[in-house]
């Protein structure tokens, strides 16, 4: 490993080596290195293979702005080597090349080249013949995309947290201007967050000798109270919400004011061979030297349009790189940097640029000449070609926030033209490139943001006004920029306008010829600007090319719409924590021990069965069964007006329910449609215990509390769903089992059907409801959830001698079907009324209250429903699918559907429920069911299949 002598402000710690692997080879790095700097230091020059042609690509920007260094880190694809810090033991692999970076079979697409993959090639070629598409698709899938997402779960299991951060001012960008803005706003008392993508605040200062200044400015902002986030790129601007990605946290920053100090993005130059490894942006070369003490080359040529390139040339000389020649496109740059170069004897060619880069696999030389080429060309050897096409304002986030840009002919870029309210721009993005101007513009923007929030005083306002006056007088932007030609040099070799998507200048020419002559169309057709760089490297070049091809001005061509995400971001970060909240009853552990097959039921994890659904169902009829029904919604409705309240919510009467008695109830909407159902037990004069379906618990609570918010009733609602467990003990032996765990008298005289009693069960204070959802004598026992396992165990133990078995959801569904009890949402839908659902008896139109649904139900009572819910039996033994169609007696179409169907071992036949035409809702009628195209004749039944008169239930 070769490193330069210590550089001021270098980020590496030379005493702390770090080892990692690249494609299986061990690489020695230093703490503070990035994967990119470490690999470059050991001589790696090819970092990736390009998307389409699989050409070699090397470090270009060293700032996370281009697509050239994408690698796979520990299985995660699309990581930028140049910004990814090294970690001991990390596994880095190349992407998009097989078998290896140095020998890539797909390179053939580049060598065959030319006419083989023009824009639109895939759309045009792989469409015919149609029948070959499955084959094409396989091949294309392999060729498409970059990297590979790991299949196994572990590597993909991201844990990202959301953090909601409300602030007065958000500053995006942590360079000189951003730090000044944060400090100024915070000093005036604003709550400030600053999001910066770099590993430490300071921006360009860090790589350009200003690290001490950067540290002081950051310290100053911190002391003023600003929260500085590093390694934290802003991803977009959405209606005032700015997501900021920082490692495993996604900050959702919502600020009252926004200051953007996003700086500029150094632009490449377009010339044949511009994508060869060894062609590097001036900023990239400087970062390698000053942050990582890595020498980017031995002999360099510099081509620039502004002072950035000249400054870089000086920095390279300082690092011991031989600078063979500097080509400055400007004819008359007499900056101090130019003078310094001349003093050092560097050949400085004015009004010249690079016309072509040459080399196989890496830059070996460059052709220099006048703009457009006037004959005085010179070929020079080099192993590093440093380019700078000037800085393009990074306005994307600003545009997403509502700012507008316009073409600035003098600088050759699209610059800010207007800002929306509450949004400020400062620093280089706003044209204040020189350090003092950048800081002043930041301080003014920060102060103005705070002032607009009512902070500050007359003094601070006066200072801000003076500051902005000084800014408007001072020089704007870097001193002198030459606008580069769309393409320099017109030779055979390829000139890449878009590195991400491998789009050449010629491709843009072709797409214009084909009629894609607007920038938005060309973007979609050639996919320029749609790759990982999000237009940072290619938007401006593409606009210049388009202007040249169509003869329009750049202003006329315009820019493409800026869209999020501004920064490539793993989907996992946006998705947040893989979070599927599973609810489990307090008895759940026991179900597992008993070998339950667990299923999702809404948010709940519940036993589907314990391995023998038929046997479990039969046990309920033959002996006894026990099911965990803790998932039921449970509400306590209490207060002097509780009865009145329930009378208004249910179509039947509840205020006249005697304490200790239970009634079934259906909740309907004001349109008379069934919302939910459950039981209501009156505990005392002022209290009712209401159960709801498991899935309806939340909605019913919302529904009750919504009406309560509107009605002036003295009622209080308490949701005890989570606090109480519940089990249902049912079967002919249930009574005997109860006697063993409770002192309560369970004789049918003392504890009749639809009685509710409070008593101890296995020592736990319980509410026991005698109801019979499954058709046998049953006790639904509600008790504190903390005693869940204890009561469950006690009941199973007490029932052991009586043949008691636990049963799951599937046998329960069969048992309730035998009793023709509806499942809301399964047998009913959002259109079902109690009349259609064969429950006219539940609606009491003679009540006084204008209960919810009354008016609609009054009408429904007059106009008989078109369809009705009935039971059916099927003699031929086939169980139709739920949702199977009920067919009309003649003609086509569907007149109803099956909602539930099971084979009942108890009854020895197939039973079910279905919506059928109301005229057929009578015992013995025949209907036709179509199940997967097979026609079945079913016989309608209107009374429960099992124990139709309820004698068993009441016994």
């Amino acid at each position, binding site marked *: 490993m070769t490193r330069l002598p210590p550089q001021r402000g270098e980020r590496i710690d030379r005493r702390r080596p770090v080892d990692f692997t690249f494609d299986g080879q061990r690489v020695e790095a230093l703490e503070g290195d990035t994967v990119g700097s470490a690999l470059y230091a050991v001589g790696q020059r090819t970092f990736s293979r390009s998307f389409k042609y699989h050409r070699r690509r090397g470090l270009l920007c060293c700032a996370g702005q281009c697509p050239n260094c994408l690698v796979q880190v520990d299985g995660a694809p699309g990581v930028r080597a140049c910004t990814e810090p090294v970690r001991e033991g990390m596994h880095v692999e190349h992407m998009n090349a097989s078998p290896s970076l140095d020998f890539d079979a797909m390179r053939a697409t580049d060598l065959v080249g030319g006419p083989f993959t023009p824009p639109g090639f895939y759309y045009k070629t792989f469409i015919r013949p149609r029948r070959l598409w499955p084959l094409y698709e396989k091949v294309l899938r392999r060729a498409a995309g970059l990297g590979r997402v790991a299949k196994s779960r572990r590597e993909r299991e991201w844990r990202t947290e959301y953090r909601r951060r409300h602030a007065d001012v958000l500053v995006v960008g942590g360079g000189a201007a951003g730090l000044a803005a944060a400090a100024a706003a915070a000093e005036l008392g604003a709550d400030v967050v600053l999001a910066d993508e770099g590993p430490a605040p300071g921006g360009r200062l860090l790589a350009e000798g200003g690290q001490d200044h950067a540290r002081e400015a950051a310290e100053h902002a911190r002391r003023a109270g600003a929260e500085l986030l590093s390694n934290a790129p802003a991803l977009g601007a959405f*209606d*005032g919400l700015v997501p900021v990605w920082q490692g495993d946290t996604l900050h959702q920053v919502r600020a009252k004011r926004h200051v953007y100090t996003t700086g500029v993005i150094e632009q490449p130059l377009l010339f044949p061979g511009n994508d060869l490894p060894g062609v590097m942006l001036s900023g990239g070369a400087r970062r390698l030297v000053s942050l990582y003490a890595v020498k980017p080359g031995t002999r360099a040529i510099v081509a620039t349009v502004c002072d950035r390139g000249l400054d870089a040339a000086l920095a390279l000389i300082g690092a011991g790189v031989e600078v063979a020649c500097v080509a400055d496109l400007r004819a008359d740059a007499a900056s101090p940097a130019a003078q310094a170069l001349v003093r050092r004897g560097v050949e400085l060619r004015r009004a010249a640029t690079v016309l072509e880069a040459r080399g196989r696999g890496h830059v070996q030389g460059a052709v220099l000449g006048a703009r457009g080429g006037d004959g005085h060309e010179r070929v020079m050897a080099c192993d590093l070609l440093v380019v700078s096409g000037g800085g393009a304002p990074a306005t994307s986030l600003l545009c997403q926030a509502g700012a507008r840009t316009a073409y600035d002919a003098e600088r050759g870029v699209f610059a800010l033209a207007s800002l929306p309210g509450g949004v400020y721009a400062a620093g280089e993005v706003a044209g204040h490139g020189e350090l003092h101007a950048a800081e002043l513009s930041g301080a003014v923007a920060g102060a103005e943001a705070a002032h607009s929030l009512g902070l500050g005083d007359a003094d601070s306002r006066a200072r801000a006004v003076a500051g902005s006056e000084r800014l408007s007088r001072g020089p704007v932007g870097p001193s002198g920029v030459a606008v580069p030609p769309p393409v320099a040099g017109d030779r055979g070799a390829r000139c890449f306008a878009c590195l991400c998507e491998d789009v050449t200048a010629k491709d843009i020419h072709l797409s214009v010829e084909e009629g894609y002559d607007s920038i938005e169309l060309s973007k979609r057709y050639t996919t320029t600007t749609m790759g990982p760089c999000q237009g940072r490297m290619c938007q401006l070049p593409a606009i210049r090319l388009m202007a040249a091809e169509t003869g329009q001005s750049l202003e006329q061509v315009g820019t493409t719409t800026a869209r999020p995400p501004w920064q490539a971001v793993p989907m996992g970060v946006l998705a947040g924590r893989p979070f599927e909240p599973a609810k489990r009853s307090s008895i759940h552990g026991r179900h597992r021990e008993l070998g339950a097959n667990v299923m999702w039921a809404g948010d709940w994890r519940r036993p589907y069965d314990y391995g023998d659904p038929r046997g479990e169902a039969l046990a309920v009829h033959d002996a006894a069964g026990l099911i965990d029904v803790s998932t039921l919604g449970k509400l306590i409705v209490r207060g002097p007006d509780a009865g009145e309240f329930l009378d208004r919510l249910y179509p039947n009467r509840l205020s006249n329910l005697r304490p200790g008695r239970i009634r079934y109830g259906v909740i309907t909407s*004001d*349109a008379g449609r069934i919302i939910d159902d459950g039981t209501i037990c009156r505990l005392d004069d002022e209290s009712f215990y209401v159960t709801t379906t498991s899935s309806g618990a939340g909605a019913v609570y919302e529904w009750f509390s*919504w009406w309560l*918010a509107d009605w002036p009733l003295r009622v209080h609602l308490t949701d005890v769903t989570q606090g109480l467990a519940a089990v249902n003990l049912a079967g002919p032996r249930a009574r005997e089992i109860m006697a063993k765990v409770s002192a309560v008298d369970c004789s049918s005289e003392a504890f009749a059907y639809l009685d509710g009693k409070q008593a101890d069960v296995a020592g736990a204070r319980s509410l026991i409801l005698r109801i019979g959802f499954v058709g046998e004598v049953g006790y639904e026992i509600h008790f504190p959830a903390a005693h869940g396992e204890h009561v469950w165990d006690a009941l199973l133990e007490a029932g052991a001698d009586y043949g008691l078995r636990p049963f799951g959801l599937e046998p329960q569904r069969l048992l309730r079907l035998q009793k023709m009890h509806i499942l809301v949402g399964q047998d009913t839908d959002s259109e079902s009324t109690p009349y259609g659902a064969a429950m006219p008896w539940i609606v009491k139109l003679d009540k006084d209250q*204008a209960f919810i649904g009354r008016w609609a139900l009054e009408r429904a009572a007059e106009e008989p429903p078109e369809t009705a819910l009935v039971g059916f039996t099927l003699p031929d033994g086939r169980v139709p699918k739920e949702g199977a169609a009920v067919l009309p007696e003649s003609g086509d179409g569907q007149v109803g559907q099956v909602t539930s169907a099971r084979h009942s071992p108890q009854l020895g036949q197939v039973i079910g429920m279905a919506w059928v035409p109301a005229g057929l809702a009578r015992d013995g009628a025949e209907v036709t069911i179509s199940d997967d195209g097979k026609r079945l004749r079913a016989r309608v039944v209107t009374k429960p299949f099992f124990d139709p008169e309820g004698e068993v239930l009441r016994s």
Partner: protein
Amino acid sequence: MSYVLTCPNCGPREVTDFSFGGEVNPRPTTRPDKRELGAYNYFRRNVAGVQREWWFHRSGCGAWFLAERDTRTNQVLLTELP
């Protein structure tokens, strides 16, 4: 879509903390005729402008409250308990 609502009990929270209860749609006080009932059950004004509406603080205090919101900008002008 993303904005902040101020729960009268809890203070400003992301909209995703709340359930939307629809625009305020007063229930008839006397028995409506068929047309009125249909309008009450199935028709909403759905204004492009300031709308009075119900919100429920689902991931919070569990209160229903009223808000006035500009449906074009999602600017919430006011929230209050009923």
